[in-house]
């Protein structure tokens, strides 16, 4: 029983990790007033970049960084469109969700002789080494290092957003860009930085899937994680720890699916698989109430307009 609970916790943490990175990306972008529906696409690009980077260099950390860089590169497209050209951010995000997976699989086929999945690549280490805690009931708590990084990034983002001058600026830009502008804050610059950070974090999210949980890129490695991360952003009321908690809940329901599916439980697996999604809706109804987005979220800022 106890060992099962620990296993449960371990699976919860494992499944929530990629979501946390994606959700943090969503938080930083939306706090600055740029809706980012393209998180999913950026995660897919991060996923292939991490697997390829880790495979070709043999160093998973380089893969992790490459994933962040590639995610940011895709985010640059979104930034140019939504910040410089005042484009419809939803449309731009949707475009990125079509474009990025296309590019990811195109690149994968090009790099690996037409295969739609990468070879096995070196994974990032677990926190206590490969066999840490082995044989003890706590073995499944020896999580991947990305799980710790996810929590660390959450704390850093909380600190930056609420305890530093720059964070205050980001929040001001997201609530009332014109007011921020009159105070001498460069709205465009803040938004560019936030969108790029958003892409980098989403890239890390993809990496934590392909070189953290599984050890290769496949077409379905990222399937809907970015969208669930988006849900977590709103669920968590646009705060880093709120989003983190929301992701844990998703991880928890995923773990529930796995634990219940493994036993001699009578519910068909397809119905069990609905659980995380149904539970989200129920939780949203019961606990969240009206979620209020940053006031200027999704609204392009055009200098001098009223």
């Amino acid at each position, binding site marked *: 029983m106890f060992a099962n609970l620990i296993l449960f916790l371990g699976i919860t943490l494992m499944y929530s990790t990629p979501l946390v990175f994606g959700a943090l990306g969503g938080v930083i972008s939306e706090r600055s007033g740029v809706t980012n529906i393209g998180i999913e696409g950026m995660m897919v690009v991060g996923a292939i970049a991490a697997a390829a980077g880790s495979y070709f260099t043999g160093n998973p950390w380089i893969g992790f960084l490459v994933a962040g860089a590639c995610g940011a590169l895709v985010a640059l497209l979104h930034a140019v469109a939504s910040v410089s050209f005042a484009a419809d951010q939803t*449309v731009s995000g949707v475009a990125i969700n079509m*474009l990025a997976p*296309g590019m990811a699989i*195109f690149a994968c086929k090009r790099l690996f002789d037409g295969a739609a999945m990468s070879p096995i690549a070196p994974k990032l280490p677990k926190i206590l080494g490969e066999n840490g805690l082995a044989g003890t009931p706590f073995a499944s708590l020896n999580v991947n290092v990305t799980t710790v990084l996810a929590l660390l990034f959450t704390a850093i983002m909380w600190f930056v957003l609420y305890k530093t001058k720059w964070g205050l600026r980001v929040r001001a830009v997201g609530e009332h860009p014109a007011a921020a502008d009159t105070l001498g804050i460069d709205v465009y610059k803040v938004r560019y930085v936030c969108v790029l950070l958003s892409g980098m974090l989403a890239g890390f999210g993809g990496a934590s899937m392909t070189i953290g949980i599984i050890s290769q890129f496949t077409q379905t490695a990222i399937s809907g994680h970015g969208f669930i991360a988006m849900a977590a952003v709103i669920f968590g009321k646009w705060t880093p720890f709120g989003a983190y908690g929301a992701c844990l809940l998703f991880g928890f329901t995923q773990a529930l699916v796995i634990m219940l599916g493994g036993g001699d439980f009578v519910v068909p697996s397809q119905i069990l698989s*609905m659980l995380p999604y149904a539970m989200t809706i129920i939780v*949203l*109804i019961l606990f969240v109430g009206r979620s209020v987005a940053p006031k200027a979220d999704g609204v392009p800022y055009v200098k001098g307009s009223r």
Partner: protein
Amino acid sequence: MSKLEKFLRGRLAAAIAAVIIGFAISAVVLAAAGYSPVQAFAQLFRGVFGKPKYMANVFIKATPILLTGVSVAFAFKTGLFNIGAEGQYIVGTVLASIVGIKLHLPMPLQVPIVLAAGILGGAALGAFVGWLKAKFGIHEVITSIMCNWIAFYLCNYVVMSDTFHKPNSNSALPVSSSSYTMILGNWKKSAEGKAFLKGIPWLREIMLKTDLNYGFIIAVLVAIAISIVLTRTKLGYELRAVGFNRDAARFSGISVERNIVLSMLIAGAISGLAGALTITGISPHTITLLAAMESYGFNGMSVAFIAASSPLGCIPSSLLFASLIYGGMSVKAPTEIINIMIGIIVFFTALPGIMPVLANRLAKQRREREAAAAGKEA
């Protein structure tokens, strides 16, 4: 303003420019990856226009994305983002299949009932999302995404259930044949029909080698109807008013909550119809086990966006995307190039600023010419 300037400021020019840019950038990507863009585009072109049956297939492929496109466009016009067209489509296929498998009525009854089942399924899912937004203020994007996955697993559940599963396959039982909506479906297989078609090779190819069905005609009619509802009726006016300014609408006595639910219900119904028409019109005439989202809803978003959310505009844009998706299968480079191209096209439709910039430049040149001419005279 000259005619050219006016054109450049219009939506059509923006759409055409986006398509041209989409092709241009894809050509660069292809060339960079070591494929010949000219060859690839020639293969794409042949894959669409090469044979009569290819062209017929484009219309078949355009049917569902035209409808999901209209669904997204309609919701967009009323201030809602229907990212749930995917799930509504799936539920449409599921309910149409269930009803179609269980019922064995004569065709004039069976077809409307099966289609209605699909419409109801999509409408119910859409209305649920609308209700969650109206009643609890939960953003429709989140609930729609959750509903997409619930619909996805619901489909797989029904496919694998004892009642509906077709043994030794990964699909459900086919619906009864009186639910089929192929054009002259029985006649074309009869001796008389075969004899007639023998004389006209191109027609024979279209009729016998594709599932040519009434779906596209129905979809076009729906697009026209929705366009009329939006622009010519009180209902449409109220829906758009809620989308445009919620507070102003409420102040003038329009029930915002009711309209949100209604809007999502209609959007869902249209996507549900798309699903039902796939079941009645295209073999295997049933649902199959889903491994990944089939993207009918997501492609519908592209269709709607390039049409600038005009329901009528969705007609040509659905044909364009269907051509790219279907013709793209003949391209002998990784087929993802088509997704890249569509992504680029949608991306550039999001940038409405490009063409007006060109128009402004033309206007400036004209003013300079006029100023120069005036200078000469003086």
